[in-house]
Structure formats: C-alpha cells, structure tokens
C-alpha cells in the first residue's frame, strides 16, 4: 500500500480527486481538474463561493490535494493577493504559484472590483474564471456573462421578454485593458489548448487571466453526455473565440469551418424559446451576427 501511495503521489491527475459532488457532465469540474493538473502540487488555490467550492469542500471531506482556501464570494482576488504577498515576504514566491478561481458570477459581477485591483497592483497570480454563463449554484440566475436571449430564472422569456436582453460582458478585453501580460480564453471542449494556456500563464510573472467556457447541463438544459459537444460548438460557431492577448497582441485559435449558431442553440433549454414553433428568426440572426463579428474581428477562419 505505501508503494501505491508513493506511485500516486507522482501523479497530478488527482489533485482534484474523484468523489466530489458535482452534477453529471459538469464542465467546471472537468476544467478545474485540468487546471490543477497543469499547475501541479506547488500551488495555492483561492476559490470563490460557488458550485466548484461547494462540490469539492463539504466538511470534513475535501477533493483537494493542494492547499486550498475559500473565504467569500467576491473577495477571492483580494484574498489571493494576501496569499501572494505573504509568500513574497516568506521568500517562497519563486517556488509556489497562486491561483485565484471562481465562476462567472464572482468574476464578472460581484468580485470584479477586487479582480481589477489585483490586476492593477501587479500581483503574481493566475485568475481563472470558469464561465458557465449564469449563477448556477444559486439556481441559474442571470449574470453579466449570460449571453443574449438566454433563459435564466431571473431573465425568463415570456410574453413581454425574450430572455436576457443584454450582451455578454467582454471580460477578457477588460482584463487586457489593465495592461496585464497574459489573457487567454479556453474551452473545456479543447483540453489540450486549455492545458497549454494554463501552463503558459503560470510561466509568466505578474497577473494573468484565463477564462474557460464550461457548459452546465443543469443550467443550460443540455444532456450531461453532450458537455464537450456544446463546448466545441460554442467555439466553432464563433460565439466563444479562443483568443490569447499577450502584451496587447491578440491571437486566436482558428476554426475549421463556420458552423451556424443554430447548431449550438438547438438542444439547449435556455435557448428553446428562440427555436419553438416558427422560431425567432430575427433574434437568431442577431446571434449569428455576433458570431460573424467575432470571426471577423479575431480572423477565426483558417485561410
């Protein structure tokens, strides 16, 4: 048995262990495991309140095999700043990396001020946002990351509304506007790209921001077995471009061919009201224009 334990210690695949209580098909659980796998053992993670925190840390159990702290919903970047400052004063910052992570609610909305402060002060921290595009832990409420026309419990479609009427906040570009050295968007649908971006981010000193698109079967009303499919469709429609912004220079992963957004929208309960009956052609066309704009702005189609 000790031999086995030793063997396992060499591995990093289980730094976020099985046995946690995430829903079947949870994109965030998979992405978080990939993030900590890329980071390795010499890391301290500060985690916002949210699904990831809840499904990994029910006392007295923990799914984390790295030092991990949860404080509150909106202060993760500030807590991580304190962790980083302490490591600096202890002379350990060259060996130990700091990751702050949270969902889109804590990142786009309630914790944004603290994140902006962390960026501006130049802390050597990787901030990871798991973006499932609504407040899922509290039961699918609209956030600043919820895409246009998506149904949530606080942006329900009805006779007088078509769901969430505002576009998604462009947080990667807001992060980049702080002048931080590295910003990246990844998707749980493309784990090798995700792994590369996390490793790259952690090799750079200073504040980094990586946003990972993570489908939520419960919140989106998708089949748990289709999480990766939907993550890839979001990328291949152009709705979720996998960009990198390094020292102000933006590059993007190319997509093989333009997939119509309808392919992505269908099968998701959160967009069903756009496709029912004769369908909301105008609104679907509007979403298509958003995808087209991304394809154009980020030059997504390989020539």
């Amino acid at each position, binding site marked *: 048995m000790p031999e086995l334990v030793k063997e396992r210690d060499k591995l990093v695949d289980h730094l976020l262990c099985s046995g946690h209580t995430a829903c079947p098909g949870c994109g965030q659980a998979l992405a978080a495991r990939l993030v900590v796998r890329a980071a390795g053992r010499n890391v301290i993670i500060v985690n916002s309140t949210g699904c990831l925190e809840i499904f990994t840390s029910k*006392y007295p159990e923990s799914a984390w095999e790295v030092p991990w*702290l949860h404080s509150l919903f909106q202060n993760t970047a*500030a807590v991580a*700043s*304190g962790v980083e*400052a302490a490591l600096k004063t202890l002379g350990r910052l060259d060996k130990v990396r700091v990751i702050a992570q949270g969902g889109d609610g804590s990142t786009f909305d309630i914790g944004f001020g603290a994140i902006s*402060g962390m960026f501006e002060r130049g802390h050597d921290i990787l901030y990871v946002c798991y973006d499932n595009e609504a407040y899922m832990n509290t039961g699918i409420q609209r956030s600043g990351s919820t895409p246009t026309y998506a149904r949530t419990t606080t942006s329900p479609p009805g006779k007088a509304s078509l769901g969430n009427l505002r576009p998604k906040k462009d947080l990667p570009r807001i992060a980049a506007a702080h002048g931080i050295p590295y910003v990246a968007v990844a998707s749980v649908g493309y784990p090798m790209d995700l792994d590369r971006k996390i490793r790259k981010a952690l090799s750079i000193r200073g504040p980094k921001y990586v946003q990972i698109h993570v489908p939520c079967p419960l919140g989106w009303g998708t089949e748990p077995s289709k999480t990766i499919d939907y993550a890839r469709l979001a990328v291949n429609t152009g709705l979720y471009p996998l960009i990198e912004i390094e020292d102000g220079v933006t590059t993007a992963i190319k997509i093989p061919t333009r997939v119509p957004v309808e392919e992505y929208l269908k099968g998701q309960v959160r967009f069903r009201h756009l496709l029912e009956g004769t369908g909301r052609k105008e609104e679907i066309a509007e979403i298509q224009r958003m995808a087209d704009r991304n394809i154009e702005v980020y030059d997504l189609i390989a020539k």
Partner: protein
Amino acid sequence: MLKGRMIQGCRAIAEAVTLCRPRVISAYPITPQTLIVEELASMVAEGELDTEFINVEGEHSAASLVLGASATGVRVFTATSSQGLLYMAEVVFNIAGMRLPVVMVNANRSVSAPLNIWNDQQDSISMRDSGWIQLYAENNQEACDLVLQAFRIAEDHRVMLPVMVCVDGFVLPHAFEVVDLPSQKEVDAYLPPYQPIYKLDPDNPLTMGAFTEPDKYMEARYMIQRTMEASIPIIEEVAREFKRTFGRAAGGLFEKYRVDDASTVVVALGSMAGTTKDVVDDLRNKGQKVGVLRLITYRPLPEEALYEALKGTQNIVVIEKALSLGGSAPLAVELRSVFHGRPASPKISGFVIGLGGRDVTTDDLKYAIEKAQQQLINMEFIGLRTDLELEGINA
C-alpha cells in the same frame, strides 16, 4: 516627569504596529483612520518598516487581503473606520470564523446617514457579534500598548481569534500626547514571531474555509463562543505580563477608578473615561461616593468579573457613544443581563451621548449621574439640542 515623547496618536500607533513586525499590511483611506496608514506608508518609504504594504481598492479587499496573508502564516495588520468597517463587515465575520489572528485598529467614527466623520462608537459596536475580540483604548499610550497585546492575544494558540483595537477617532489619532514606546528589543522579547498552527503550504496541503451542513455548523460557532469565554483569563494574563515587562498597567478586562466604596459607578468605554474620571474626582470632593469602571474588553464581555466588581453598587450609569436603533443602549442592556436574577442587583441606567462627535461635557456626565441616582433610566439621549424644531425632541 512623564517618560516618552510628545507625538501624534496616529504616529504613535503606527510606530507600535511597526514594533510588532507585521509582514503584510493592507491600507485604504478613510477618515479618521487614514493618518495611521499614512504614517505606516512613510515608514515603509523610509526603510523603517520591512513589510508588504499594499494599497487596496476598498476596505472589503483590505480585510480580505490580510485574511489571505494570515492564512498563509504571517503576521498581518490593517486599520479602518466607520463605513470602512461596515463595508468589510462580511469579511470581519469570515476572519473570525476562519480563526485567523488578524489585528486591526478601528478609529471609531459615526455611521452614515447623515454623513458625519466625527467620533462615536456605533461602528465597532455594530461588529460586536462578529467573533472579534474588541479592546477599547482610553488614550494614545494605551492604544499603543493594546496593539502590542492584541497580537499576543490573537496569536495565542489557545485563542486564534482576531482582535480589534478601538480608538476614538480624532480624539486619539489626531491628538498629540506624551507616549512611551518600548524599544524593538523589548517588543521582540514580549512578542515572538507568529507561529501558525495551520497555514496554506504545498508541503502540507490543507483545505481551509470548507462549508458545513446543519449537522456541523453549530458546533463551529459554539467553539468560537467557548474560545471567547476562555480568552478572558488569557487577556488578563497578557496584561499582567505586559505590566511585568514594561512596568506600566495597560489592557486587561477593565479599569476601576474609585469604584471599591462607590455607591454610584459610571461605566464607559474609551476616551470618555478620562472626562468621567474628572467628574468623579469633582463629585468625590463634594462627598459623593462615585467611581468609574472603564471597560477595556467589550468582547468577550467579562460577565463574571463585571458582576464581582459592581455587585453591591446602588446605581450603575452606563454612558455610551452607541445605540441599537429601535432597541436600547447596548452595553446597559448587557449589564442588566449580567445582574439578572442575582442578588444585590443595582439600578442600571443607560445614556446615549456624544454621537457624531458631539462634545461630552462634564455637565452632561454630572446630569447623567444625578438623573440615574434619582430614578432608573432605561435609555436617554444626553445633550440633545432643544433649539431645533424636531418632532418629539421638545415634547
């Protein structure tokens, strides 16, 4: 002749903090605390303080940053006032729940609305239920001495709770007084480096801040309550050792001034006690048996010690720069509960005074004492203006 230097309170407090060698300090401006972090910043700039001094973007983050640093195993400090304390309120509760020995100075100020920057104690009293030990200083010497003691208390492995040192805004940090600050060598001997019991460390990975279901939450809160109670003798012990080391009495649970044979005892917190002592001296000269009990440790409330100190007194006159709106004078209510159902219970009157920086005069205090000697006052505001035509005031 007094030992020490004539020095502004904020500078003295900052020097006391520096002597404690905090490794991480978070700073955000708010009147009247700002002068303290300004002094700390200038000491960092002059190379007199080796610390990570971090200007954050708000008090919520100021408290969160020291939370994270403390959880990583280093000594931390921050300071705030009023709206800043209210803004960081959820972190204040969180720090205590996570059992992190953060030390914070709160320069007491009123709370908005109306906006008012001057002193009262509504801010810190509103945090009394947060799980922080709260110590109130009478003057700048004691403010400095309490800072030293605060780290000792907070980091004691039998305690591991945050400590808030409360100083009356403007009255202390802006005032020049003679303050005797010990040498670095003396403080190093009194306050050894922080030895965390638990910390974030890849060599020994821990999960901190786990969530609990109803089957375990209550026990976690119960443990804080038990520790609060158990910290009462530790606060006394730390004060005794302070006196042995520095030859000066400071801290502890409360100070008794001419209480032992008194039939009327005024109970007060912070800088008001100085004026109250003058009133007591004056009334003593006129033959009245009056004294002051200056409460230093508001949380944990030293109920047994207060009972022992005040039993046999006829009148207790609680004067407070705080109130529970829609309730009553908070400390008066708590003292009534200390005596409830026990023999030799005095009449306990509560007075609200000096809100928003209104002067607390000797006449105000004499009025309160006289009134309470005549009748039991549940709660009365002292010093309300009668020239304003406000509904109810002149009724």
